[in-house]
């Protein structure tokens, strides 16, 4: 990753132009050509620096359900439970954390009711309680990741 890649990542984490030639418009502000910007984005996607180039949707406004859930899983049983949790397509990501509550995952579902159903199914299959921590409010953050 060079300084141009960094500039692309730092400047295009939001506000990508919605115009007929958006890459040309964005390239101009970055001092690049349209072709160069397209090639670089493609490479950053190929090498896995970027997961996607496009929209980040607001799940609740799309009509879906979204929540954060946590579990307390004994170390010896962790891998088994992680496999169960990760097998659900409703689980968007799952992190191990250093705490008695050691497994944290995001549930993103097309139907809001699926959050509760998925939690019940995970509890039944794993044998452990799932704590649901739904979002009540979101506070606006400006910057994302500077590189």
């Amino acid at each position, binding site marked *: 990753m060079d300084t141009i890649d960094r500039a692309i*990542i730092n400047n*295009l*984490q*939001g506000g*990508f132009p*919605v*115009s*007929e030639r*958006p*890459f*040309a418009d964005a390239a101009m502000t970055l001092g690049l050509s*349209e072709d160069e910007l397209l090639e670089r984005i493609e490479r950053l*996607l190929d090498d896995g*620096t*970027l*997961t*996607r*180039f*496009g*929209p*980040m*949707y*607001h*799940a609740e*406004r*799309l*009509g*879906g359900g979204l929540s*954060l859930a*946590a579990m307390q899983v004994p170390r010896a049983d962790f891998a088994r439970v*992680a496999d169960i949790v*990760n097998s659900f397509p409703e*689980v*968007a*990501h*799952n*992190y*191990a*954390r*250093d*705490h008695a*509550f050691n497994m*944290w995952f995001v549930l*993103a579902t*097309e*139907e809001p009711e699926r959050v509760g159903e998925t939690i019940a199914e995970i509890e039944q299959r794993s044998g452990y309680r799932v*704590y*649901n*921590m739904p*979002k*009540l*409010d*979101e*506070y*606006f*953050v*400006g910057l*994302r*990741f500077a*590189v």
Partner: protein
Amino acid sequence: MRSEHEARLIEALQRGLPLVPRPYAALAARVGLTETGVIELIQSLQNEAVIKRFGVIVRHHELGYCANAMVVWNVPDRQVTELGTRIARLDYVTLCYRRARSLPQWPYNLYCMIHGRDRMRVRERISELIDTCGLQGVPHEVLFSCRRFKQRGARYSSVVPAFKRVVGA
């Protein structure tokens, strides 16, 4: 008027914007709209904040942001909005939410994420945050993570009914 075009566009777009000089024309061909129609629809989805952000989505682990701390606070409900707003303003805070408590095991109601290149740097930032935001004496815990099992991002494969229910009203 809401249409199936919109749902189709939401679905086509979530895989990513086509990497061609006129991506909205390419999308238009796929979903049966005009280029102008696609541009207007995306703008309206942004105005309604159905699209929160539009651009590069980074895989932060690959950028060296290896230490990722979720800091949870137990703040009085009447202060949560003020404190959440204050915390969110700091440039090293990447997310800040109020969440439901799960009493008695989990008393925390305010969450923020702090990413950094290593844990020591993240801990320094947390101390700084406590000073800056006046959080001295507020019960909190720091949950570090560097192990991710799954990151696929949310996917919506059949948004038509759900989408209509929300925005079709």
